[in-house]
């Protein structure tokens, strides 16, 4: 469900990006390598390099020259708050009333999620051990595949994420460390467990 919401949100959020898309492709390398640098700062560098090795077969002739894994800052104009977007350039998809590849992927993803929900309940409620174990394996397989599907969609640029700001992460860390030191019923807050 979350993924789909994200997806919907992406479509809403992207007009800027789409308008700039052509120029980004043509001005090319500099902007893209800058994007990768941002990513490496964000500790995703290793994965980015791994993805770089794989070539990609889609219609855009220039696409292979570029790294597959880039962070694009959508609102580059805004100076006050910089939202770090974790996103790949979107794969060329025909937009028409007909279902396209992206729609098919989304529908399969929704199906897999429906299945994992169902198998989760089945796993808890199966009577004997053999049945429980088999259903648990099916649940696990389905989850793994759903993740593969999600990764493929991310690679094709159908998903994007907004990186949380350092400040907000730090505030949360402090707040919840404090909670633990005040409320831990096991007294493990000195981290000596």
């Amino acid at each position: 469900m979350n993924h789909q919401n994200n997806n919907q949100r992406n479509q809403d959020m992207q007009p800027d990006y789409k308008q700039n898309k052509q120029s980004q492709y043509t001005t090319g390398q500099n902007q893209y390598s800058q994007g990768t640098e941002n990513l490496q700062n964000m500790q995703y560098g290793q994965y980015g390099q791994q993805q770089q090795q794989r070539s990609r077969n889609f219609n855009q002739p220039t696409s292979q020259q570029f790294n597959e894994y880039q962070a694009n800052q959508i609102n580059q104009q805004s100076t006050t708050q910089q939202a770090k977007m974790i996103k790949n350039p979107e794969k060329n998809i025909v937009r028409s009333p007909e279902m396209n590849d992206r729609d098919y992927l989304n529908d399969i993803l929704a199906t897999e999620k429906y299945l994992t929900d169902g198998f989760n309940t089945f796993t808890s409620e199966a009577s004997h051990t053999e049945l429980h174990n088999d259903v648990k394996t099916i649940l696990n397989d389905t989850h793994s595949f759903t993740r593969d599907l999600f990764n493929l969609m991310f690679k094709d640029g159908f998903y994007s994420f907004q990186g949380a700001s350092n400040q907000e992460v730090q505030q949360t860390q402090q707040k919840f460390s404090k909670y633990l030191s005040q409320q831990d019923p096991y007294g493990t807050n000195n981290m000596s467990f």
Partner: protein
Amino acid sequence: MQQTYTPTQQNQQNFQNQQRMTRPPAYITTKDLAYLKDAMSWELLAMKKCNHFAQECQDKEIRDTINRAGRMHANHYKTLLQHVNPSKSITSY
């Protein structure tokens, strides 16, 4: 009239103390069967959907991925079907 299954039922004379089951025996319950029917219906629909979508897809990588999903669902269906076996049924009617 419902009968209650315990392992001592057939060997009542052999065991003086009642023997307890530590795990449910490998029998299909009514609830198991209801879930198995549901789960196999989901898998069947999923594999048909994958097969259909894969044929419609333009991109090879997407097509291959969806096909892989379809084959996975077919395998899961077979695993589930093995559990629907009359030999695992506790009653003869």
